[in-house]
């Protein structure tokens, strides 16, 4: 199995999903058990990523490389490094959580639901592990279909609108990225004569700054929509609100990370000069996202929408950290990705718990939930505080590092972003106060049942992660930092190469940018 480990990782859930689809339709218990078994097996299979991936070893590990489309030069090329290993672990963990968490919520068409969940998991893991751009694109796009069906078929009132919007938004960005991938391919082919979609080959190919600009914009648009960055975020609240709980969990925990992962893996190292050139824009949008997301969260009457907008805010931190372009910012961004995945996933599950019991998500319909639901209230408290970024929880580490990185790059970035931290405390605490504290304002809420054993089991790993990452983040940082630093080094080196290519005449702005880069920042 050693040589095919990553292949198994990608295709085990898909295989499980296909087998599940072949089962008889009515047997919901069997579907749930099977899906849980497959997801747990996948989690177990992915666990060795924690200790078998050697963080400081440069290059990709557990590489699998086979000819796929020789006529085009595309390869079946999988590999893992510190960055993708952690994201894959997050994916497998959150998939287990989402699948078990959905037991009560999905009553109809369980077979199709869980088959799609497993297919989605395969797509996500494939996206993180691909090192061939065409293969990456295939997974990136293919993943949309199960998510789209999950939102559209099991979602709420306006599910069709939300599902189609989700699909179209993502698609617009992706097709332009495809054009950019093909352009890169032909440039590389023209330069070396070898047709290939290998990421390494593109990493090695020098690109003039003028060329980088357009390619970067195409890649960045695709990823920015997925993140989602400020003006492209409008699909997110719709998709989150309408999606079934499990869909929201996966969407928030993993799918959004694909955008930031795309920046780390592709947009920044491939086009460092253009990336630096657009830093003011991206940072500006990230800051707007942080503050705007927080402000909009504050006024949401719907719990799910509140969490959705808080995602816009938190993902703004990820982008800010990346574009601080220094080790602290990168590590903070990566920590923030992981902790947002866990905290926001947990928040959506918590909203799902009360939605299952009361079939409403309006803050006004709750109040004083601590009395009937003490365990729920306690868990909610912890998760809420971790989302705010209280020291000792996972949210703090990421935000702190991002702010540190941003401060090194530009004091104002950090100052503005810090207001986002304050605002997040406002909207979260206020929401928590209205939902959980105070007297029970609605009679229906008086007799709600507290968390069942299954639900407690679902939250247990998330709580463990919240504290583990908050109290002892070093093991995580150790695993991601070398790979992140290599990405940063690669970007700087490629930016320097591009600067020599451009010369003084080609582009007046690029030399300035390259000189600034090693100091860490755009200004």
């Amino acid at each position, binding site marked *: 199995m050693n040589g095919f480990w990553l292949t198994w990782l990608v295709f085990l859930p898909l295989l499980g999903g296909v087998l599940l689809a072949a089962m008889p*339709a009515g047997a919901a218990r069997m579907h749930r058990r099977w899906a849980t078994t497959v997801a747990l097996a996948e989690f177990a299979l992915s666990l060795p990523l924690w200790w078998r991936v050697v963080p400081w070893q440069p290059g990709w590990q557990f590489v699998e490389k086979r000819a*796929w*489309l*020789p*006529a*085009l030069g595309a390869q079946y090329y999988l590999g893992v490094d510190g960055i993708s290993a952690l994201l894959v672990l997050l994916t497998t963990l959150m998939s287990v959580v989402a699948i078990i968490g959905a037991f009560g919520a999905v009553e109809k*068409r369980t077979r*199709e639901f869980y088959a799609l969940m497993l297919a989605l998991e395969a797509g996500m893991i494939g996206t993180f592990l691909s090192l061939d751009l*065409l293969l990456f*694109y*295939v*997974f990136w*796009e*293919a993943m*949309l*279909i199960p998510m*789209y*069906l999950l939102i*559209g*078929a099991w979602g709420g009132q306006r*599910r*069709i609108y939300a*599902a*189609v919007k989700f*699909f*179209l938004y993502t*698609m*617009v960005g992706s*097709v*332009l990225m*495809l*054009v950019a991938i*093909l*352009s890169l*391919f*032909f440039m590389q082919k023209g330069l070396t004569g070898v047709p290939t979609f290998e990421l390494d080959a593109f990493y090695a190919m020098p690109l003039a700054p003028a060329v980088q600009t357009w390619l970067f914009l195409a890649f960045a648009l695709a990823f920015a929509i997925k993140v989602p960055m400020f003006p492209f975020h409008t699909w997110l609240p719709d998709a989150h609100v309408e999606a079934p709980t499990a869909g929201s969990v996966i969407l928030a925990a993993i799918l959004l990370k694909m955008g930031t992962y795309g920046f780390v893996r592709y947009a920044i190292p491939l086009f460092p000069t253009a990336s630096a050139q657009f830093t003011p824009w991206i940072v500006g949008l990230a800051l707007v996202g942080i503050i705007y997301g927080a402000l909009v969260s504050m006024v949401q009457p719907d719990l799910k929408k509140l969490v959705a907008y808080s995602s816009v805010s938190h993902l703004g931190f990820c982008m800010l950290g990346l574009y601080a372009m220094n080790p602290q910012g990168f590590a903070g961004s990566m920590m923030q990705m992981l902790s947002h995945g866990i905290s926001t996933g947990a928040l959506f599950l918590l909203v799902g718990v009360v939605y299952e019991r009361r079939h409403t998500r309006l803050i006004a319909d709750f109040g004083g939930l601590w009395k009937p639901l003490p365990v729920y209230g306690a868990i909610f408290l912890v998760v809420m505080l971790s989302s705010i970024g209280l020291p000792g929880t996972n949210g703090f580490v990421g935000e702190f590092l991002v702010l540190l990185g941003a401060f090194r790059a530009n004091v104002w970035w950090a100052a503005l972003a810090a207001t986002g931290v304050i605002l997040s405390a406002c909207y979260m605490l206020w929401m928590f106060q209205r939902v959980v504290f105070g007297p029970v304002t609605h009679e229906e809420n008086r007799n709600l049942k507290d968390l069942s054993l299954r639900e407690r089991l679902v939250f247990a790993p998330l709580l463990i992660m919240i504290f583990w990452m908050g109290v002892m983040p070093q093991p995580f940082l150790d695993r991601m930092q070398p790979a992140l630093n290599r990405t940063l080094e690669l970007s700087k080196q490629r930016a320097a190469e591009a600067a020599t290519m451009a010369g003084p005449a080609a582009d007046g702005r690029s030399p300035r940018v390259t000189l600034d880069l090693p100091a860490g920042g755009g200004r």
Partner: protein
Amino acid sequence: MSVLPMPSLLGVDLWALGAVLALSLGTLLLLLLEFLPARAGSSRSAVVSLLVLLVSGWAVFVVRDARRELFGGMFVHDGFTVFFTLLFCAVGVMAVLLSWDYVKRTRINQAEYYALLLSATLGMVIMAASNDLITIFLGLELMSLSLYVLVGFRRSHLESNEAALKYFLLGAFASGFLLYGIALLYGATGTTNLSRMAAFLSESPLRSSHLLVAGGLLLLTGFAFKVAAVPFHMWTPDAYEGAPTSVTAFMAAGAKAAGFAALLRFGLRAMGGVPGEWTPILTVVAILTMTVGNVTALLQTNLKRMLAYSSIAHAGYVLVAVVAGGPEGASAALFYLAVYSFMNLGAFGVLTVMGRGGQERVLMADMAGVGFRQPLLALAMTVFMVSLAGIPPTAGFMGKVYVFGTALKAGFLPLVIVGVLNSVVSVFYYLRVTVAMYMQEPQGEPTEVSWAVPGIVALVVAVALTLWWGVQAGALLEQAQRSVLGLL
């Protein structure tokens, strides 16, 4: 190999002509067989035509590596011919399988139906194998006349009659244009043979003579009509909607591929690649075809009409490959046509099995709730829709990657961007089908499905190929590239 009395017809030549001979004889056989009355509901004609198509495909396959000129260079047997003959035979087989139960259900007269299907296939094969404008025209007319009748085959239905009449009138017009173009080209070059035309053009400075340009454009108009390119697409939605669904499936795949086959051979063989003067015109036509097709498809509620507009849009994608030009562009077009044929046959195929008896359930509303009532059928339809939309991991995605990649390489970046944005637009209406199937509850009586084995076999094959070429397109890709090299 023994020397036969006629030196121009060696054994290989007979094999090379095998498809044409088999299809001609098969057509006659089907008509003659009608003298022996068959049981009501017998599948005799379908079985015979299936065998004929398989035999003709096999005959060509046996001599797939040979290269021959027959009948004084009017008919050529090369990689290009083999590729398209096999494609047309496959399309024919799929159409027969899809028609099998459909024609019985809709009480279509079987023998004539299948005879016309075979003769239309014959016309397509001749179009692809012709190296002479006269034979191209011959093949085109054989195909078109058969299709006019097939479109109007449900003669008790008003729409079917209307469709046939429209198709015929506009088609006759287009044939006129084509013929006029041929006449002008003959006047300009003194020959109708493509090879000799190429030789003439290479040594004379007449490349840009008005006669030649006008003739070429008229010829282009004729082909544009057959492949349903804007602005010659008006007949498509009506003809596709009115025709029996199995015929729609057949003509959407076959006739389009045949039109492109002739166009590509003319462009590559006679003109030595797409002439420079044509590029702007073809670019505009490609952009219009994609955009008009996709945007109009957004508004359709009848799936046959929607797929008709989608087929117009797909003609636009193939035109992008034609614009890209050269052997690369041609092989991209070949690849796309093969892929498109199967996914489109599949999509129409799903429609042929929907509904009981003579009823047609082809409205968007008829798809409501099919997703969980008929999970397998809905899965197949989803695969076809996803593939037509060009989303991985399906064949349609690979087709688009190859087509747009080729165009990008040839330097048509704006065209490519228009193309990919168009495919985003198309996603919307293809998704509507899945929305209806999985996200809406059926209104009125739910759609019933006719589970007849042949139709299901065809659907299974189409799904398998659509998925297989989506993940393993290598073999087909190489085949397409080799076929085009054989031509040049």
